[in-house]
């Protein structure tokens, strides 16, 4: 990936919250680097306190980094101009309760420097897209949690941003709402918009993200294309024929050995494929099939965290 097609670039991000009278200094993020390619959906995962929200806040200028470089569409994130083409949905968004949905959109549109006509047109479209078109004139103090979430998504998409950062977009939404959000995100990707998605809903991330970064204890513990990550982590299922028992050097590598289609079936680490295939043929057998058994993102995620005994430690 070149720097040119990176919509978001974070290099060596670091954040240490200084000591206060009652709280000792704590390192929330250390040496995090992240590149999000233009037009992709990039998921950010991690347990509570892993440093993902702090990283996002540093990118958006809400938290001052202790070190590192942050760029949005090539513009340093410290500059307000970097947020001209950016939309952000905070976790559990809240808006001035005295405003109506339409007034809130007008306020955010004005902050983006949009004309009245642009605001009116986009407000109508976006409120329809998030299912709030019939609540445009309702005061936000009467909005439910899910309705505020929908409005949060609408305001994040105001001004047709090229980069959208969504923090728990499906939080507080019913299943239909969650499906709508997924469809909105996929629509954004189709339109070439870059999406950085922070979520605890692993199935959602697995279904819509091109790449993911898994945060743990203030660093990126794993990053890559979902397919790569999951196949790296997974095992492959083997079915071999013409053998009564496994070759001696394959035995220790094989798990769940069972009879299958007149031969033997077992699973083993994908990284041992070549060794196993060679050994089977050397013993006069043949390999009927090798199927990469893709693990779920949830399994991969929990496995990764379990490798780190202090994963539950609060960092941020």
């Amino acid at each position, binding site marked *: 990936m070149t720097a040119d097609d990176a919509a978001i670039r974070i290099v060596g991000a670091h954040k240490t919250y200084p000591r206060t009278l009652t709280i000792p200094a704590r390192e929330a993020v250390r040496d995090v680097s992240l590149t999000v390619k233009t037009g992709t959906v990039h998921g950010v995962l991690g347990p509570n306190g892993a440093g993902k929200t702090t990283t996002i806040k540093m990118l958006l200028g809400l938290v001052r980094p202790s070190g590192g470089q942050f760029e949005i569409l090539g513009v340093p994130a410290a500059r307000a101009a970097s*947020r001209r083409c950016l939309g*952000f949905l905070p976790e559990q968004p809240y808006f001035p309760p005295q405003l109506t949905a339409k007034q809130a959109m007008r*306020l*955010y549109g004005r902050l983006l420097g949009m004309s009245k006509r642009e605001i009116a047109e986009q407000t109508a479209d976006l409120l329809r897209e998030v299912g709030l078109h019939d609540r445009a004139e309702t005061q936000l103090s009467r909005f439910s949690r899910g309705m505020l979430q929908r409005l949060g998504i609408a305001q994040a998409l105001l001004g047709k941003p090229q980069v959208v950062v969504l923090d728990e977009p499906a939080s507080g939404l019913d299943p239909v709402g969650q499906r709508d959000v997924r469809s909105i995100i996929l629509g954004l990707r189709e339109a070439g918009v870059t999406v950085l998605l922070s979520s605890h809903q692993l199935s959602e991330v697995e279904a819509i993200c091109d790449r993911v970064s898994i945060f743990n204890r203030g660093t990126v513990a794993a990053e890559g294309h979902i397919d790569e990550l999951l196949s790296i982590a997974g095992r492959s299922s083997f079915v071999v024929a013409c053998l009564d028992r496994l070759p001696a050097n394959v035995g220790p590598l094989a798990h769940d050995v069972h009879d299958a289609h007149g031969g033997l079936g077992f699973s083993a680490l994908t990284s041992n494929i070549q060794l196993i295939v060679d050994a089977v043929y050397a013993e006069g057998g043949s390999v009927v099939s090798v199927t990469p058994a893709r693990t779920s993102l949830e399994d991969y995620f929990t496995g990764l965290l379990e490798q780190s005994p202090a994963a539950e430690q609060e960092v941020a």
Partner: protein
Amino acid sequence: MRAVLALANSIVSDALRRRIVYVVAAFAVVMAASIPALPSYGVGVVQPVFREAALALMWIASLIVVLALAANRIPSEIEKRTAYSVLTKPVQRWHYVLGTWLGITLVMAGVIAAFTVIDQAVALLVYKQAMWQLWEGSFGIWMEMSVLAALAVAVSTRGGAVVVAVSSLAFLFIGHSRENFVRGVGDSVLVKLYPSLDAFNIVNPVAHGSGISVPYAATMTLVFLAYVAVFVLLGGLAFSTRDL
């Protein structure tokens, strides 16, 4: 500037739904109407005393409104995260501080103008006089309260409501106690740098004298602008280094 005006507009709309503004307005009406019912002040001083009492009430009511609007504004917006949706737009932190101050100042202008109209109406009914000089007093009070709002907003970028209220009241006290604090120190730097609010002492000339002169009003305006610029700048700086 558009962002600043949009934020100010949001503050005004928020203030209009706050009960405190209407409670203070009702209090002002009742108090203004009851001033003439006070015991006689002596021949020839009835109307000046009315003006003095009206301005004093206006000052107190304005102070309450300023503290109610400014003390917890930014802290609560950070706590409720409404600030996130604003500050992730192309808005500078100092825009946020300036817009918040401007909104509060506009609300104050409306509240003080309403008080003045009420006082004028009472004066017209009771004394058959419009007492236009009350507007000069209102102008001075608005400026002083706007300075106080700037301080309160600046402090609120870092401190909570109690800290803001205490700082604002302390500033008012110190600002009006110049004579007590720097008496006998001559024309030293301390005297020149003293954060005085004496320029806004307009009750006496408005109530008992012939009002304030144009040069005096110009000086008052300069002092007002200087204080506001300093506080907004400090508030902007303090807020820009705050992690949200």
